[in-house]
């Protein structure tokens, strides 16, 4: 039985293709006596047992969380991805310009963006930012793609519903311009007409490939209000 002894590893410099390269030489495999092997084996088994014993005897290392019971104190990790949302400023305004980069990046057509020319601003404004929770794989590509940092993934995860259609969200709570366009409009009265409030479930959105009354089926990845 040959044994590998990591302490016997040797560092040296060798010439490889004219360059000197630092290498770590593994020691030769040594054949030692029968008794040595038996005792070495027993010793390493005991080492393993010493490592695992504290895990078996104490409760402090347990990572399991008792979910419904600890609901009040549960905090999800910062990077946990469960729900796509718009990043909003203090007045509830988002920064999405409706550029559709996220829609194109989404590998499974979970994002559908409807835009229209704003009457006051004359620019593209998001009418509805439809996110298909039921199709999303939480790959986060939309968040990485967005050039305006309009999207983020939130950690809240209790989204069970009894009707699949409830999993299709509008991310924007108003149809209207993004934050910086908003600031360019100076007239107070005009500002008031900029946005129309919409709810997360406003308007009809078909599920994958199907149609609903008043809303024809859309092809994969096809968006727009047209």
């Amino acid at each position: 039985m040959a044994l590998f002894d990591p302490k016997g590893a040797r560092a040296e410099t060798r010439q490889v293709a004219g360059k000197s390269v630092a290498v770590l030489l593994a020691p030769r495999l040594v054949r030692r006596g029968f008794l040595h092997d038996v005792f070495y084996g027993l010793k390493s088994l005991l080492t393993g047992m010493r490592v695992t014993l504290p895990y078996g005897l104490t409760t402090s290392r347990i990572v399991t969380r008792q979910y419904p019971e600890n609901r009040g104190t549960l905090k999800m990790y910062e990077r946990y991805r469960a729900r796509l949302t718009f990043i909003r400023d203090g007045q509830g305004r988002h920064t999405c310009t409706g550029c559709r980069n996220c829609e194109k990046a989404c590998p499974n057509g979970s994002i559908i963006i409807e835009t229209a020319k704003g009457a006051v601003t004359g620019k593209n404004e998001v009418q509805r930012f439809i996110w298909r929770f039921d199709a999303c794989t939480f790959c986060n590509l939309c968040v990485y793609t967005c050039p305006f940092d309009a999207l983020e993934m939130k950690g809240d995860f209790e989204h069970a519903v009894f009707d699949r259609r409830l999993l299709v969200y509008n991310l924007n709570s108003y149809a209207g311009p993004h934050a910086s366009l908003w600031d360019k409009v100076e007239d107070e009265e005009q500002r008031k007409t900029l946005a129309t409030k919409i709810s997360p479930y406003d308007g009809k959105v078909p599920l994958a490939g199907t149609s609903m009354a008043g809303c024809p089926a859309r092809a994969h990845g096809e968006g727009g209000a047209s």
Partner: protein
Amino acid sequence: MSVFSPAAVIAAPQVFEVKTLASRAATALPGSLLESALYVLLAVVWIVALLALTGLALIYLERKIAGHFQCRLGPMRVGPHGIFQTVADTIKLLVKEDFVPDGADKVLHVVAPFLALTATILLLVILPLSPILQAADMNIGVVYVTAISGFGVMGILLGGWSSNNKWSMIGAMRAGAQIISYEISATLALLVVVLFAGTLRLSGIVQSQADGWWIWRAHGVGVVAFVIYVIASTAEINRTPFDIPEGESELAAGFHTEYSGIRFAFFFLAEFINMFLVAGFAATFFWGGWMPFHVGGLDGFNSVMDLVPAGAWFAAKTSALVFLVMWFRWTFPRLRVDQMMRLEWKILLPVGFVNLFAAALVVLYGLYFFPGT
């Protein structure tokens, strides 16, 4: 009449008189048939209760301990801290469909789990839990233990062969090879204790440790024999690191792949009770069984130790050994088949023989502690 004196009571070491249920039945027989039958009934109830309760407790413990070793909690939902989890699982297994696969050897497939469980029950009968809690005792106890624990492999072999499934077949063949190989080393280790105790009777072996347990009274050879016995018997009951017959990664579930419902439960129960038995026998042979911790000659100290009842000593020792075996399971990686065979034939067997020879010399020259008694 002497005045009661606590000092006198403590100074006189307790004499343990072994009364098995079988011997009570035999004594009662000439006088009253009914009394004798009652003792037999008591023995049967005792064995069944031991089987069921130990099984439930061990399976629960195993899952809890497994959980903690893996940074989990284990069962938590059924009852406080999941204590009714195994009860629920048992009920589930009982109401499950009892399935015999197409092309299986029906009779053998049905019989196999019962054979495995029979071997386990036969061993439970002879396990000395305390001077009064032992169903039967016999003068060839060690031979009986060795023979019956080898018999358990029949159930596994038949189960694997009759299932008409390649995984079952390979698993059963591995189990056969493994159990029969390690049987030899386990027996060699037990023979060391037989040499010291001078008897094959289990209660006699326990009583021979009244001056001290063999693990330290027989010093070197005792410790080596104990280590060999623990390794070999872990292999005999197919537990990690020797769970090759049911290696999930390569054999689905090994010999019980095709079993479900109550007959799977029998295999499972037999496996867990075997773990209890192995711990119990290791305690009996090396740690004094139900014998309290005695040091020959220190009568005062021994009497204090006698205050703890014999059954409690057995329970404590067996629990410690059961924990050790579970600890093994959640620490060691599984061996390969060839490594397992090499460990037995090239390491344990030679070491066991040398140890037995050394033990014979130690006994011959009385080189162990308190040889006179």
